[in-house]
Each structure stands twice: as structure tokens, then as C-alpha cells.
């Protein structure tokens, strides 16, 4: 019975997220067709998501790039393969680490704040107030956050890649003893455009997940401050779980696509 309940809860959750996603797409198309898409609201969200997340994303990217070079650099140096360090680090960052780590950081920083903001709006009747003013809450609240997360996660992942490479290059030059030219050449020779694009595609999907899950958790908040707290935590946990689970399928799918069409 417990297993059945779990399955039922998961199906309900998955269905609700899918419906909210489709509603976001519908209201986006509706907004574009009627010329009433809330561009200002979208810009505000993008700016907030980008500015709020950038410091954490920068630290994460720099640290990850630096640590990767430390871990890989000495091993490769022993094998005489220093010239591959830049390439391996950049591929690891571009394909996996940058989108995943940026996704997790943004889920913690922005997913929680979206759930808290909308949860507070729900329990203080602000969402009801929107409806009484003939305004659809998905159109007004979800669409800008959904696209804000989706677009900005791609942008932030690009920053994570660049900052990770900067962190890696500093360690490679100062600790491993590589020249900057060797490190950069290695990146240019080994990193392919499809590695970058695959990672950015993942980032886009993770951003959409963070936006939809944050909004869903906010909209389903019940009770007072305790309910908002639960939604906030729930949004982060759920977003990270989904990011990790979906990452596997995306990786397989992107690899298959690259093998079939780009090899």
C-alpha cells in the first residue's frame, strides 16, 4: 500500500508539473500572439536571477576548474600528458560539471526564493487577488520566472565554463607548471562545439525544471509561515533530485544524437 501511495503521489506530482509546464508554454505563445507578453517582468526576473546567482556561480566555477586541474594535472604530468589537461578539464566542465553545478546552485538560490515568494503570495491571498482582477496567475507569475530561469541558467552556465577555465588555467600555470599557451591550445584542440552546446542544452532543461518546480511548490503552499518553509525546502530538494535524474537521460540522449548526426 505504501508503495502504491508513493507511485500515486509521484504520478500526481509529475502530472502537475507537466500541466504547469504546458500552461507556461501556452501563456507564452498567447502573450506573443497578442503582444501582451510581460517583457518588463521577464527582464526583471532575468536580472534578479542572474545577479543573485552570479557570485555563487562564479565561486563554484572557479573552484571546480581549479580543483579539477589539481586532480588531473599531477596524474597527467606523471604520464607525460600535460598537454591534454586543458582539453580534459574543459570537456568535463562543458559537458557535465558546469550545467549540473550551476543547476544545483540556482536551484538552491532561486528555486527556493521563487517558492517562498509565490508561497507567501498564496497564503496572503495575493494570487486570489490577481484572479479577481481577471489576470491568470500562470501568465503573470509563472511565465516570467520559467523563462527567466531557463534563459539565465544557460547564461550562467556559460559564465561557469569561462570562470572554471580561468580558475583551471591559473592553477595549471602556477602549480602544475604548464604554460598558458599549452593549456589554451589543449582546450581549443579538444573541446568541440557539440560539447558546449550539449551542456548548454542541459542547462536550459535544468532551468526550466527549477522554474516550474519553484512555481509549483509556491502555488501549492498551504498554512502559514510553516507552509512557506516547507515549500521552500521542498522546491530545492525536488529540483535537485529532478536535475540529477534527468541529467542521466539527457546525457544518453545527447551522446546518441552526437553519435548519430555529428560524428
Amino acid at each position, binding site marked *: 500500500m505504501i508503495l502504491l501511495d508513493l507511485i500515486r503521489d509521484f504520478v500526481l506530482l509529475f502530472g502537475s508539473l507537466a500541466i504547469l509546464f504546458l500552461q507556461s508554454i501556452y501563456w507564452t505563445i498567447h502573450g506573443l500572439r497578442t503582444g501582451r507578453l510581460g517583457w518588463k517582468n521577464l527582464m526583471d526576473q532575468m536580472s534578479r536571477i542572474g545577479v543573485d546567482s552570479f557570485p555563487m556561480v562564479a565561486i563554484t566555477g572557479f573552484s571546480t576548474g581549479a580543483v579539477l586541474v589539481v586532480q588531473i594535472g599531477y596524474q597527467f604530468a606523471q604520464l607525460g600528458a600535460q598537454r591534454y589537461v586543458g582539453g580534459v578539464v574543459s570537456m568535463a566542465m562543458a559537458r557535465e560539471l558546469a550545467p549540473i553545478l550551476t543547476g544545483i546552485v540556482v536551484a538552491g538560490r532561486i528555486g527556493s526564493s521563487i517558492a517562498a515568494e509565490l508561497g*507567501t*503570495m498564496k497564503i*496572503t*491571498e*495575493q494570487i*486570489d*487577488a*490577481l*484572479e*479577481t*482582477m*481577471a*489576470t*491568470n496567475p500562470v501568465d503573470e507569475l509563472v511565465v516570467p520566472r520559467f523563462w527567466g530561469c531557463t534563459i539565465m541558467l544557460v547564461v550562467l552556465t556559460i559564465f561557469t565554463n569561462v570562470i572554471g577555465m580561468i580558475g583551471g588555467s591559473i592553477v595549471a600555470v602556477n602549480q602544475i607548471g604548464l604554460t598558458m599557451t599549452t593549456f589554451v591550445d589543449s582546450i581549443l584542440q579538444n573541446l568541440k562545439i557539440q560539447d558546449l552546446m550539449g551542456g548548454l542544452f542541459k542547462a536550459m532543461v535544468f532551468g526550466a525544471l527549477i522554474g516550474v518546480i519553484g512555481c509549483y511548490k509556491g502555488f501549492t503552499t498551504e498554512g502559514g509561515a510553516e507552509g512557506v518553509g516547507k515549500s521552500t525546502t521542498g522546491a530545492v530538494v525536488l529540483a535537485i533530485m529532478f536535475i540529477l535524474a534527468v541529467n542521466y537521460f539527457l546525457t544518453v540522449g545527447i551522446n546518441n544524437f552526437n553519435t548519430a548526426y555529428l560524428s
Partner: protein
Amino acid sequence: MIIISNLCKRFGPKEVLRGINLKIYDGESLVILGPSGCGKSVLLKHIIGLLKPDEGQVLIDGEDITKFDQKRLDALRMRMGMLFQSAALFDSLTVEENIAFGLRKHTNLSDLAIHHIVSEKLEMVGLPGANHLMPSELSGGMRKRVGLARAIAMEPEIILYDEPTTGLDPIMTCAIDELHLSLKERLGVTSIVVTHDLNSAYRIGDRLALHYGGRIVAIGTKDEIINSPDPLVQQFIRGEAKGPMTLL
């Protein structure tokens, strides 16, 4: 005219509305009285279509709004305004942006015209010059007045007030009541007011209804209610803890 017929609503095991029947005539002010937690706000939310009943109908101008799709419901809501119990101001917007929200969404008025309307409504609720304040800078009473300014910004035909004077001082309560009466006189607005404030109810209500136990147990003019022999009515208007009406 608004006709509520056999309206029932249940939340889990709790039966909040048990067959509400009510008629509200055009241009009338109906005040719904009742103890806290008896479902008065739930009734208002059915009238504006925020909640769907388990059974029953809400007929506005002869059409059952419980069957309306989103588009028709939105069209109806353009003719209605609602003041929420907590004012429900949008925290991230200024007072002016809150009041202008509906005007910006649903009209093609210029920024200047909208600014004039906002300033006029703010003056009506006794808050001139509060345009650029944030909701967090307002007291409870001020929030409620801004909520009222927002509710009347689109000059609706029907206004629903959920405890409009709770938390206001007696002078402001009287000012809000006078505003209510002037809106009724000037625009012929139909009002449904949920309140605990008997003085205010007597001032503004053409008719008063007592909601208790999920039903309307009494309805009539101020004098009919005051002189009602019903012990429930007498207990409520005298504010007695002991009597047939139990605390929820």
C-alpha cells in the same frame, strides 16, 4: 441581480456552506454578519468565482457563473472588485502600481490618465500622495484603504468587501463607510460586505444577513434584524458569549 441558490461547499470533512440561499438586488448593499470561521469569506469567493461549489448555483444577471469557462469568468470579474480581508496588496509593487494593476492590464489608458485615476482613488480613501510607498511601509489600516482603492479603480458594478473596516480606527471606519455609501449613490454599485462591525453594518447595509452553521439564518433590514425574536440574532447583535450560537 445576484441569486445564490442552495450553495454547498465542503473542505475535507468540514461542511462550510450547507445550502446558502440569498438574493442581492442591483444597487443594494447587503451586509453578511456572522461569527469568525463560519464561511463568510468562502461565500464571497464563490460569488467572484474563486471557488467552485460542490452543489448549487451562483446566478449573476441570470447566468450561472459556476459553469463559466475562464474567459467568461474573466469578463465577469472585470465588472467586479474585491477587497480582501488582508488587503492582499502585491508586496513587490508600489501603492500606485497596485492600484493601477487592473487598469494597465485591461485598458489602453495612457500612463498619465492612469496616474490621475490612481491619485483620485487614493484621495477618496484618505491617502493622498501615498503613490510611491511600498506595502511594507503601510500600517494595517492604510493597506486596507489601498486595497479598497485598488478594488474601485476599474469602477466596478459589484464590489465584494471582506471585513473592510477591521483594524481601522473609528474615524477611518466612518470615512470608509461614507465612501461606500457615496460609491453606491454615485455609481449605483451593488455591494456585498462581510463584517463583524455592527455599527458599520447598520450604517451601510440596506439589508443584513446572519450567516451561521453554513446557512443564512436571518435576513432583513436593520430594524428587522434588531427587532428579530430569533435568539441567534439577538445573541450575535448583543455580543453575548452564552446562547444558542456556539463558538467555532
